[in-house]
């Protein structure tokens, strides 16, 4: 199949494509779903993080 003789290499080739598609679909679904997440955001800084660079 696809000119590749070894099943293991063919599986690796197809897994790359399938994995990227899985990531893309997951990312799009998460993007569409998630606006409420902004409320989870931390304030920009406090305590130790607030020192200005001099």
């Amino acid at each position, binding site marked *: 199949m696809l000119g590749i003789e070894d099943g293991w290499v063919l599986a690796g080739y197809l897994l790359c494509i399938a994995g990227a598609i899985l990531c893309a679909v997951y990312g799009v679904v*998460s993007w569409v779903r998630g606006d409420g997440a902004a409320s989870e955001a931390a304030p920009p800084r406090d305590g130790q993080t607030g020192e200005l660079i*001099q």
Partner: protein
Amino acid sequence: MSLAQTVGLLDIALIAAYLAAVAWLGWLGYRRTRSTSDYLLAGRRAHPVVMALSYGATFISTSAIVGFGGVAAMFGMSLLWLTALNIIVGIFIAFVFLGSRTCRLGQILDAHTFPELLGRRYQSRFIQVFAGAVIFLFMPLYAAAVMIGGTEFLTLQFGTDYGLALLVFAAITAAYVFFGGLKGVLYTDALQGAIMTCGMAVLLVATYWLAGGITAGHARLTALKTEVFAGHLAIGHRGFTAMPEFGFGSVRYNLWWIVVSTIIMGVGIGVLAQPQLIVRFMTVRSRQDLKSAVGIGGVFVLLLPGVAYTVGALSNVYFHDREEIVGTIRERFDADVVTRREPGRAPATLRCTLLRIAESATGRQHVIVERLPDAGSSAGLMRQVAEVSDAGGGLVRVRPRATAYLRALVRAGTDSGGRAEYMFNPDSIIPTFISQAMPRWFGVVFLLTLLSAAMSTMSSQYHALGSAIGRDVFEQLLPPARRQSAHTVAIVRAGIVVGLVLALLIAFSARGGYVIARATSIFFGLCASAFLPAFIAALYWRRATRAGVIASMIAGVTATAFWLLLVKADEAGAIGLVRWFTPAVPGPGGTTYHPNSILWKYPNWPVVDQILIALPLSALTLVIVSMLTSPPDAAHVRACFAGENEESGPAAVRSRLASSIQAAGQPGRKDDVP
């Protein structure tokens, strides 16, 4: 000859425009960097698209494109398993299962670096300092690998001196991270990620077109198994579209263990514990942002290493079937070409007849193999490789008909007798393929792609390295009253300079023997063994104790060091200590030598990667020691995991954590140097 004549005005203009854009983005980052949090974490407000591109651009470097691409050209498409692991483990699992919890824990603990995250999670200054020191000491090895990748291309494309190209490359990258902090790094990474994606997409289409299409190209590559280099056949190479021969206890299984344990597992799993990548999870506002970034990350990785490994393997079809050089033969000579260097022994060589050709169209000089010893002949017969025919007008047409490995012939210096020494250098395969198979304009595009890949990774490496020494080591070793973060940035910048010098020293002295892939693999494996069990336990296992984590990290580093110093032949040989522990054994020609592995009598063990030994040992140590020691402070653990089961945001949890610490009368962290 002027610079413009050597390099070309178009090249100079494009590179200048690119560097101007990078400098502007670095300056923008500098302007917007107002606090330590900005410098170290981009203010925790990075956009998910910027974060995903930055993660991908940091993850994928010239090491992946040039180094591992060259390995794929040599060993074939089995390396695509590394891409599959990069996507599924390095992106999906890393973002969804580790990244989201890291993001929240980082906010709760107000951690700015990976060592600080571990140190605060386990309430241990020792853990933070130890992790920072490991990163600072070993990151230069990985930085050197990335530098070599970019430098090999500069050297081939423009005919510049290797040392000069190395210096220019390193100086440009260090300049903008020095000033910009992580904001500058994120901005430039995003631009560079976009350039890399475009460059590699064009390369993939062009390579498949040159190979005759997807199925036809793969089929032709399959047919080239009869051309595999004899030295590779002996260790289990079964063709460019097949996995190496699997087994244990014989030299003919060595390649399977090199490809699977070192290349695929060492890097594929090691990515989960990369400090410069983990810190990116803490730059976004929320876990939802991370999940949204998964899509871009996955496609990015497919388009970069996926393309590099596919193109690397298919370059064999181009070099063997299509490449032609028209010009004049300047020299035909016999030389001993180095096929393998083994420290402590004379290098393995192959007596070949070489041709030096001046290409008429470009003026470029090529040295190719015309004839080499016939592997099937015991009578020392030579096999014709290159075909030479008359092209008219006093010119000849030379068809190298070589595999990518044989075509990547470079001058490696001079031998002890003052004669030119040549070696097959897999790290030159991708640069040679680009300069020969692609039009000149694409060479410039690819140069920008490589510059982007190298600069994005190196800037993050220097950032992680500087943070490690500044915030995690130096600041933690000062008395509490003197820990002023205003000084941290100055120390971080000093750390960057020291790291740069160390990386340059390594890059100057190491070339050949697919050193890029090996150095990358060593660093990834070390990080996995030292940090991965502690990192996963920090996110998922409440029972993990400080003592367990310290023991695990020490066990991981010790086991890795032991394996690299005494067992894994290539690395142990390069360091040399192992030869004190191995006996003198007879070598060829009545000589004696000391083997480079204490397990030299047992085939395959000297090529098994340290990650297979050190990572399980480190994980086991963490579990056993944690179960044998008292449970960690319940209030602290509850606070660390609070966000996973309740609605309150990290700020509320952090406030509660601070209250509980004050109520207990403890400092922000227990001091627990064992």
